[in-house]
C-alpha cells in the first residue's frame, strides 16, 4: 500500500502538466491545439462510450487497439530475436561484421516510410507487412547495442572462460550475453517506443484498421481532437509498455545495479 502511494506520488508531474496544457490551449484558442478536456471528451466518444458489459469499450476501440498492440508485440519480439542473436554474432565475429556492416548501416539509414513500398512488395498489405515494417524499423537499436555489448565484454571475463575451456556456445550464453545485457536492454527499451511509432507509420499505407489507421482517418477528416486523442493513446500505451519493461529489467539486471552502485 505504502509502495503504491509512493508510486502515485511520483506521478505528481502529470496533473501539473495537464493543468498547464489546459490553461495554455484555452488562452491560445487555436483550432489545431484543442484543450485536453475537449480531447478527453472526444476520446471518450471514440473509444469508451460502448456498452458496460464490454468495459465501455466501443467497437472502434476493440477493433483497432488490440490489433495494433498485437502488431507492436509481434514486431518487437521479432526484432528482439533477430537483433540480439545477430548482434551477438556480429559483435563477436569481426570477419562477418566486416561483410555485413555496410548493409546494416544502409538498412538503418533508410527512412521507414520509404521502405513501405518494399515491404508492400514483399508481403502484400496486411498484418504480415506491418509486422515486418515494425521489426525492420526498430531492430537497429537492438542490433547495434547488442553488437556493442558483445564486442566490449571485459577481456578478462572472456579469457577466464577461454581458460576453462568453455565452448563457443557456452561463452555466448553464459558470459557474453549477460555481460552485454545492460546494453541490450537499453536497445530493447528504445525500440519498444520506436515500435509504437513504426506501428503508426506502417498503418498509414494500405491499412484498414489499427491505431495508426484511426490517426490517419482523423487527420483526413480534420478531426483534430481525434488526432490528439490518438496521440494521447499512443503516449499512454508507450508509458505502460515502458513501465512494464522497467519492471522486468529491474529483475533481470539486479546484479548490475547492485554491482555498480555506490553508497
Amino acid at each position, binding site marked *: 500500500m505504502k509502495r503504491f502511494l509512493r508510486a502515485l506520488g511520483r506521478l505528481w508531474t502529470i496533473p501539473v502538466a495537464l493543468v498547464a496544457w489546459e490553461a495554455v490551449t484555452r488562452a491560445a484558442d487555436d483550432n489545431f491545439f484543442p484543450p485536453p478536456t475537449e480531447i478527453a471528451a472526444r476520446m471518450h466518444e471514440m473509444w469508451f462510450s460502448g456498452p458496460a458489459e464490454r468495459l465501455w469499450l466501443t467497437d472502434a476501440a476493440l477493433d483497432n487497439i488490440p490489433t495494433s498492440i498485437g502488431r507492436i508485440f509481434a514486431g518487437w519480439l521479432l526484432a528482439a530475436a533477430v537483433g540480439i542473436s545477430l548482434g551477438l554474432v556480429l559483435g563477436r565475429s569481426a570477419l562477418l561484421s566486416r561483410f555485413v556492416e555496410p548493409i546494416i548501416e544502409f538498412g538503418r539509414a533508410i527512412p521507414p516510410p520509404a521502405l513501405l513500398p518494399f515491404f508492400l512488395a514483399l508481403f502484400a498489405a496486411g498484418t504480415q507487412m506491418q509486422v515486418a515494417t515494425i521489426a525492420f524499423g526498430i531492430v537497429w537499436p537492438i542490433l547495434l547495442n547488442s553488437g556493442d555489448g558483445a564486442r566490449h565484454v*571485459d577481456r*578478462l*571475463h572472456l*579469457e*577466464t572462460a*577461454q*581458460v*576453462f*575451456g*568453455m*565452448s563457443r556456445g*557456452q561463452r555466448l550464453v*553464459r*558470459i557474453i550475453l*549477460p*555481460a552485454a*545485457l545492460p546494453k541490450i536492454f537499453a536497445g530493447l527499451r528504445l525500440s519498444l517506443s520506436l515500435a509504437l511509432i513504426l506501428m503508426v507509420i506502417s498503418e498509414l499505407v494500405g491499412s484498414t484498421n489499427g491505431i495508426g489507421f484511426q490517426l490517419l482517418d482523423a487527420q483526413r477528416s480534420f478531426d483534430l481532437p481525434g488526432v490528439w486523442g490518438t496521440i494521447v493513446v499512443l503516449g499512454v500505451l508507450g508509458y505502460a509498455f515502458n513501465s512494464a519493461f522497467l519492471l522486468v529489467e529491474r529483475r533481470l539486471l539486479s*546484479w*548490475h545495479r*547492485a*554491482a555498480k552502485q555506490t553508497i
Partner: protein
Amino acid sequence: MLEISNLTHTYGTGPGAHHALGGIDLKVAEGELVCIVGPSGCGKSTLLRSIAGLLRPTGGRVVLNGSPVERTPDDLAVVFQDYSRSLFPWMSVADNVSLPLRRKDMDKKQRRQAAMEALEQVGLDGAAAKYPWQLSGGMQQRVSIARALAYRPALLLMDEPFGSVDAQTREDLEDLTLRVRSHHNMTILLITHDIDESVYVGDRVVVLSKAPATIVGDLRVDLPGPRDQITTREHPDFVHLRAEVGRLVRGMRNQAAPAS
C-alpha cells in the same frame, strides 16, 4: 609435460614497443610445482598468458604434451592476478565456481557439490549464495582459487594467488595447494612475490630477471616431504634456499630500484 623454448614477446611495435620476454627456455615435468619469482613488471604474467594460449608470443615455442600451444589448451585452469575482474558479477559465488564444471561429465548436483567442497576448502562455505561484489578482496581471490581447484585441471597456472589474504589463510592455502596437487597429480606453475612461499611450496624455483625477462636462476628445492609450515620453514636447506633466491632476485633488481 611443458616445454618452452626461446620464448620472446614484444608488446606493440615501433618506438613505443616493450620487449617483455627475452628468450625463455623452461621444461616442466608432469606433476611438478614450479614457482616463478621476479621483479615487478618483468614479464611473469606475460609468460603465463603465453602458456595459457591467451597471447600469441612474438617468438619461440610453447609445447604442451608434445603439441605446440596455438590456442588455449584443454584441461587447464588459471588464477588470474586481477582476480576481481575475472569473476562474473552476474553469477553467485557458487555459480562462478561451478560454471567451468559444465565441461566435465557432471550433472547439476555433482557440480554443486564439487563447488561447495572447493569453497569449503578455501573457507568460504558461508558465502556460496552471495555475489562476488559482496565479498572482500581476499574472499574474491579465494573464490577464484576455489574455481580453479574445483576444476581439477591437469595444468594449473596461478598468478600471485595468495597476495590478498592474511598470513594464516595464506599458509592454509599453500598447504591446500600442496595437498590437491599430490592427490590429483596436477602440474602447477605458481607466480609469487613471497620468496619464502616459493621455496616452501615449490619443487623448483625459477627466477626471472627484469625486462626483457630471462631465466637467471632455476633452483631445485629438495626439502623432505610432507612439508609442514613449522618444521619445513626451520629446515636448514629452506633457510639456505630462501637466501639464495633472495640474492638472485635482489641481484637482478638493483638497477631498477626506486630512487631513495
